């Protein structure tokens, strides 16, 4: 993403759900992707609790190379932007692991998305991506997860779990796994669901004395916790969860 590149269009698969109108004014000001290299055998992680904002648009663009037997974990919270995009390209070496945990919390007319491209270039690498979205009003939350498995990348194990909770019928969730597999001994699991808050559970909780806003908060908190359960660092996990909770509370005004 540099000034020399033309603005993407909806025809570009990776941009099909993007808010290009919001993107246009900031597009020339964006730097290219931030490159990260995790050396062989090393472990690294990154947490993004707030998007870097520019005129209501927050773009994170990462290009990560994970060396042989190295491990990279990325945990992100996409919220608080008219248009927010977390775009990640990961290239995995032999026996490397990539972990992604993402929560998308949207309301109003926000468009928030996580777009990943995971390249299993060498054998024995693993990747696990968990994305949970909570969407209110007319918000759109999308996850596009492309997985490339090269011809030599035998024993690849790649998993994606994507779940969205719509608090209003006017909200939109998109979940799009895309697999390109050229090796024959691989495991690529992907699952996606879109649902609403369980009304039976809400009544059950109310019958114990929980006001609706608190019952909803408890359920949503549990729902998005899946995205951060893989974090080893307790302090970092608490920080991202408490920020997520803050955003959830602001969505709490939208009761079913």
């Amino acid at each position, binding site marked *: 993403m540099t000034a020399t590149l033309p603005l993407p269009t909806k025809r570009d698969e990776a941009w099909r759900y993007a808010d290009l109108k919001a993107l246009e004014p900031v597009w020339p000001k964006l730097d290219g992707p931030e490159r990260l290299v995790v050396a062989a055998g090393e472990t690294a992680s990154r947490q993004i609790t707030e998007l870097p904002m520019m005129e209501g648009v927050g773009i994170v663009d990462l290009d990560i190379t994970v060396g042989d037997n190295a491990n990279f974990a990325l945990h992100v919270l996409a919220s608080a932007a008219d248009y927010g995009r977390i775009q990640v390209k990961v290239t995995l070496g032999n026996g490397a692991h990539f972990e992604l945990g993402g929560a998308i919390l949207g309301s109003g007319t926000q468009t928030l998305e996580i777009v990943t491209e995971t390249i299993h270039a060498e054998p024995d690498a693993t990747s696990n991506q968990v994305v949970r979205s909570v969407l209110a009003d007319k918000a759109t939350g999308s996850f596009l997860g492309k997985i490339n498995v090269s011809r030599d990348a035998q024993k690849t194990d790649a998993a994606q779990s994507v779940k969205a909770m719509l608090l209003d019928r006017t909200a939109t969730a998109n979940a799009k796994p895309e697999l390109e597999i050229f090796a024959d001994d691989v495991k690529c699991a992907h699952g996606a669901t879109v649902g609403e808050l*369980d*009304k*039976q*559970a809400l*009544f*059950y*909780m*109310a*019958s*114990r*004395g*929980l*006001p*609706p806003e*608190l*019952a909803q908060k*408890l*359920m949503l*908190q*549990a*729902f998005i*916790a*899946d995205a951060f359960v893989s974090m080893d660092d307790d302090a970092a996990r608490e920080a991202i969860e408490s920020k997520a909770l803050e955003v959830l509370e602001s969505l709490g005004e939208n009761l079913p």
Partner: protein
Amino acid sequence: MLKIENLHAQVGDTEILKGLSLELNAGEIHAIMGPNGAGKSTLSYALGGRPGYEITSGGVNFDGEDLLELDPHERAAAGIFLGFQYPVEIPGVSNLQFLRESLNSQRKSRGEEPLSGAEFIKLAKEKAGLLKMDMDMLKRAVNVGFSGGEKKRNEMVQMGIIDPKLAILDETDSGLDIDALRVVGSGINAIMRKPDKAVLLITHYQRLLDEVKPDYVHVLADGRIVKTGGPELALQLEQEGYEAVAA
């Protein structure tokens, strides 16, 4: 304590309660028995305020308050506990967190101080012990992976912790083996057999009533109470069937 007058309730377009009247005083245990489809569960949901159960006429007064004006969580805070026939699973929310938040929400709305973590754990341990439930189960997500019997036992632990004035127990005995039935029965007695409390027990079978002796037994058929008697009525029902007794 609870006075139900000529209650009519419908689910969708179907009228299920067709003029039900019932009065419970403090210190009393009432059993409601009746054939399938008589409206027993509808009665408990209507009293709990479940969305979709529409009251079309009649009234319910609880401790001098118009119950039907209250939202479900406000009914709980007023002192009503609903024991579910099919307790609901809530993935990811621990029993302890759920109950502490529930209890403290109730206390807050009554103008009482919230219980601290330590006070709450002490209370939860005591009530779990009463129902012979392992504390580890209280740390797990609400009802997730619990057997049918464990869910019912958990309902009673919740009742013990919340300590309501009135418990409406919808087929709490179903899914329990004989030993569990005895534990649950003695739990109900220990928690609710008090001069300032009352219980409405909805059941199909005499067996629970051997453990929790009712003061009154009512037969509910086609949306109305058709017969009221003492404990002997339950025995008669068991021997002769609803059709013979309710006719």
